[in-house]
């Protein structure tokens, strides 16, 4: 019997924390301020700082992550997953387990000549789902966790999850995605 597998799409928004880049050790500190996820690209769950405690935001995401057979997102293997893992470790929680991943940036078949940002790919393939644009002022509000900033972040992260889901579907139909691979923390 074939088995239905559970695919979880997700995205995070982050802010810089810790030392300012430029010091001797040049650390690039950052932490998640919002995590959103979806099982179908339509209904999106979101947890974010000020609305949720950091530990609750992380735990709720991990609960979904642990029941997924595969996770998908844009640049997740080199950005989102390691950052979530770092946040889990900072809060003394269990790290993420190894997971099959479909990364719509890193699993694109070899190409050159244009940007593989989610925004650009969505535009190129004329997806209906829009990316919520964040200019510098909005980012400053978002990272300072002002009420306006929190609202901007929520729209941004939720829209990104929906758009990435649609993007993955489009890329699969075109045959532009390589085989999924396991991410190991």
């Amino acid at each position, binding site marked *: 019997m074939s*088995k239905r597998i*559970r695919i979880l799409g997700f995205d995070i928004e982050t802010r810089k924390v810790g030392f300012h880049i430029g010091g001797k050790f040049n650390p690039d500190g950052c932490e998640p301020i919002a995590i959103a996820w979806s099982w179908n690209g339509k209904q999106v769950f979101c947890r974010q700082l000020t609305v949720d405690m950091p530990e609750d935001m992380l735990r709720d995401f991990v609960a979904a992550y642990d029941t997924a*057979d595969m996770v998908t997102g844009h640049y997740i293997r080199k950005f989102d997953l390691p950052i979530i893992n770092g946040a889990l470790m900072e809060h003394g929680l269990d790290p993420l387990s190894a997971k099959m991943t479909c990364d719509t940036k890193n699993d694109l078949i070899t190409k050159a000549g244009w940007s593989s940002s989610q925004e650009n790919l969505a535009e190129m393939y004329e997806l209906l789902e829009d990316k919520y644009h964040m200019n510098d002022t909005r980012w400053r509000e978002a990272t300072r966790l002002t009420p306006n900033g929190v609202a901007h972040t929520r729209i941004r992260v939720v829209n990104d999850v929906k758009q990435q889901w649609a993007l993955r579907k489009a890329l*699969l139909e075109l045959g532009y*995605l390589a085989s*999924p691979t396991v991410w190991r923390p």
Partner: protein
Amino acid sequence: MTTRRTDFEQARANALKTVRAAVRLKHSIAADEELNRLLPEFEKQFTKSFQNGVLQSPVDIKKVLGV
């Protein structure tokens, strides 16, 4: 205690060994050719199915391959 083979026995053993090796090689080459033909297509189908949320069972796999 070891028993030495006669020249005839040794020649026969060598000939049988050569035939056995030749037949195995023939089938092994044929198997490699079939695998090289089948596996990429099968892997493509398996991955496509997985990406669309279905993990194919070994029984389905045998059906796909007609074995």
